[in-house]
Structure formats: structure tokens, C-alpha cells
């Protein structure tokens, strides 16, 4: 499968229209499904024009994938064990969330926040128990984490944290050393702590009728 995908991607990068059409055909369902999930989660289930939004957003995600000489697609390495479709699914989710949050177009032309930069900005750490206590805050953290991670970071987050693959299995699949994988895990965790702290700080202090307002909503209002 990966060899077929490799050939298809190579053909696309060589400017073959037929290969490009076939690549888009196999990627479109994954991109659309990820966009639909991200959009509905963020905007809710209502709205007459959700499908139009999905189409627009899916198109923007594709533009991001092919931007800058298809830089995002070129980052895919079949030797790391992830299929091209799965890889693009991860990237699509990241791009969709980023576009919705920032309103910008073709976000891949911008560089993802470097982990080192985030790590350097860690100036304090708050108790984790208080930070991952509710689903909405977790959703914000995951969304921000996806934006912060490079394609390789996304892969490793998916494998280590979501799929809970043992480090040895990740090493075997990606060709990375155990030290490198542990280093990534440590860096991801540091960034998670930073993002969780930020999410907690965005919580409104005052509650109404004993019910805490949505942190997501407060974040969007703050961003908007």
C-alpha cells in the first residue's frame, strides 16, 4: 500500500495530472471526514450550511497540503510506518482546527510553533489534576497541541499517546532510537503542561448560578 502511495505521490509531485487526480480521490474522504468532525465539534451540530463549510474547509486543507511545493505532503515518510492516507488525516485535522481557530487561509505556509520555543516559555507549572479535569479543557489542549506539533510530532503523539504503542514498537515502526522517542515523549509532555496551564488560566473566575461557563467559549471570545 505504501509503495502504491509513494508512486502516486511521486507522480503528483512530478506534475502528472492523472496521479494528482487519483491522489485527491483517495485523500478526499479522509480529509472531508476529519474536517467534518472538527467543524461539528467546534461549531456544533446546527447550521444549514454545514456542508458548504465542510467543502470550503476541505478545500483549504488541500490547499495547505499542496502549498509551498506540497511541503506538507513531502514530509510524509513511508519508512516511519504511517500510511499516506493516515498521515494526511492527521495533518488535515491539525490544519482544520488551526484554520477555524485563526481564520487564516493556507496555514501550512506558516511554520508550526517549534517545540523548543514553547519549552523555553515554560515559566511555571500548575497542578495537573486541576487542569485536565474537564472534557472541554482537554479538547482545547489537544487542539493547541496539534497546532504546535510538526508532522513528525503528530505521528509520535498519535502512536505514543493515542494508540498507546510501546516505545519499542514505535522504534521499530519509525526507525528512531529509543532515546529519541523518549525525548519526544518528554517534549510533548512539557508542551502539554504548558498548554494545560494556559487553558486553565483562560477559565473565567466568576461563575453564574453555580455553573462554570464553557472554557472553549471564553477562549473563542478572547481570540475573537
Amino acid at each position, binding site marked *: 500500500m505504501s509503495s502504491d502511495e509513494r508512486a502516486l505521490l511521486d507522480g*503528483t*509531485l*512530478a*506534475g*502528472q*495530472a*492523472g496521479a*494528482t*487526480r487519483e*491522489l*485527491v*480521490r483517495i485523500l*478526499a*474522504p*479522509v480529509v*472531508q*471526514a*476529519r*474536517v*467534518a*468532525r472538527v*467543524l*461539528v*465539534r467546534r461549531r*456544533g*451540530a*446546527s447550521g444549514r450550511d*454545514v*456542508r458548504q463549510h*465542510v*467543502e470550503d474547509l*476541505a*478545500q483549504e486543507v*488541500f*490547499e495547505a*497540503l*499542496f*502549498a509551498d*511545493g*506540497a511541503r506538507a505532503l513531502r514530509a510524509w515518510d513511508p519508512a516511519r510506518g504511517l500510511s499516506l492516507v493516515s498521515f494526511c*488525516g492527521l495533518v488535515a485535522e491539525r490544519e482544520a482546527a488551526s484554520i477555524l481557530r485563526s481564520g487564516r487561509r493556507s496555514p501550512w505556509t506558516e511554520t508550526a510553533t517549534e517545540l523548543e520555543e514553547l519549552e523555553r516559555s515554560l515559566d511555571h507549572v500548575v497542578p*495537573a*489534576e486541576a487542569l*485536565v479535569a474537564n*472534557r472541554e479543557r*482537554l*479538547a482545547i*489542549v*489537544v487542539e493547541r*497541541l496539534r497546532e504546535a506539533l510538526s508532522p513528525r510530532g503528530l505521528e509520535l503523539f498519535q502512536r*505514543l*499517546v*493515542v494508540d*498507546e504503542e510501546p516505545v519499542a514498537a514505535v522504534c521499530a515502526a519509525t526507525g528512531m532510537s529509543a532515546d529519541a522517542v523518549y525525548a519526544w*515523549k518528554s517534549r*510533548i*509532555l512539557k508542551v*502539554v*503542561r504548558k498548554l*494545560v496551564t494556559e487553558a486553565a488560566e483562560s477559565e473565567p473566575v466568576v461563575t453564574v448560578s453555580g455553573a462554570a461557563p464553557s472554557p472553549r467559549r471564553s477562549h473563542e471570545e478572547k481570540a475573537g
Partner: protein
Amino acid sequence: MNDDEILAKLGQHVRDDQAHDAALVDVARGTRDATSVGAAEDDEVRAMAEASRPLGDAFEAKVAARATAALAPRVPARAARFAKLDVRRLGRIAAPLALAAAVLVWIGTQRAPEDEGPTLPEYALSVRGDVDTRGEEAPAPAASARLRVASATSSFEIGVRPAEAATDRVAAWAFTFAEPGADPTPLAADVEVSPQGAVRIRGKSSALAGAREIRVVLAPARATKFDAAVERARSGIGDAHVRVLTIAVER
């Protein structure tokens, strides 16, 4: 809560979030009915499934066309391939097309002052659809032809020949228009340019879904970029520096 517990909590959250991903992809592929995804009372998942209904061939064609256009100027291998195609070869390719009802339309030349940049020679246009093609002469400086599309599975070919070899390397872009005044969409087709400036555009008729017109923009490669070509296509106005050829699409 230790680090592993934090990550475990995040991992579980993402797994929950991704629980319906495979089903949503099946819906988007058209292999699963949207109403079969998620529990009836789960409005959010049902909304995701509805939003995942296939966007259709037109969407994929549009995306593929834009992707092709985005990559085209950046691919050296493409230029190498183009270099193998010369005018004589294009003439051999075009000959059978002529027998199959291709037409030639000579495009008027308007020589510009030398200080306004490189100019292009006169061009002749030939088009072929699988079933029927006919052309008509258009008043200068515009040029037009008609391409009749038989079915989505047929193919088409457009040949553009210079009256004399171009002195500059020529770049070519092709766009489709759904209706007059609509935004141009890059045509998903193979565009080959010879060192002498001859152009051949080949593609599947499915790439013309919804299109009523094709406009081909020719310009010296060193003087015109993609964005400028888009604007030329949009205006439909050519001159001695940038040629704009129009092909009406009929069904």
C-alpha cells in the same frame, strides 16, 4: 497525577474523539449510509455523518486542478519532459486531429513596442474531443473554438502552435469557467510546452465537469507568473505579450 496519567487522560480523550472516524470516512467514500453512524440520539455524531456525505466528483476535480496548478511551476522534471517535445512532433500529433475535424484558428498579432517586454508570435489553435469538434474563426485579437464533450469518460486534446518559434521560453496555463464572470479554475490536464513555444493540453473530459469555457493563457515564462495568468484568464483579454485563447465547451 503523574506525567503518564496526564498523557493517558489526553490519549483517552483523543480516542473518544476519533471513535467514529472510520465510519465517517466510509460515509465520505460513499460506501456507508450516513444515517447508520452513531446512535439516533447522538446529534453531534449524526451531524458529523451528514457533513461527511461525499462532496462528489466536481469537488475532487476542482481540488486536483488547483493542486496541479500549484505544483506545475515547481517541478523541474516537467520542464525536462517538455524539452523533448518540439513543434515538428506537435505537428505530427496534430495531423490526425485535423483529419478528425480539428480546426485551426490563427490568432492576430499585435506587435508591441520593444520596451514593453517580450512578445509572442502568432498562434494557431486546434482542438479535439472524442466525438465531435468544430471551430469557428473569431475576430482578432480574440480567438475561439468549440470543443464538444461526448461523455465524462472521453478525453480531449488542445494543440496550440506558434507561427514561428518563440524567442522566449513560453509558459502556458489553462483554466475553466463555469459561467461568464465566474472565477477561473485551473484545468486538471497535462500541459506540455515545447522549447519553441508549442503547447499541448490533454485531459479527461471529466475535468470539464460543469465547465462552459476553457481559456488558455500563454506568456513568456520569465515575465508572467501564475497569479497574473489567472487575471488574464479572468479578463479574457490578450495582447502581443500574453495570448488568451478561448474554447467553448459544448455537451
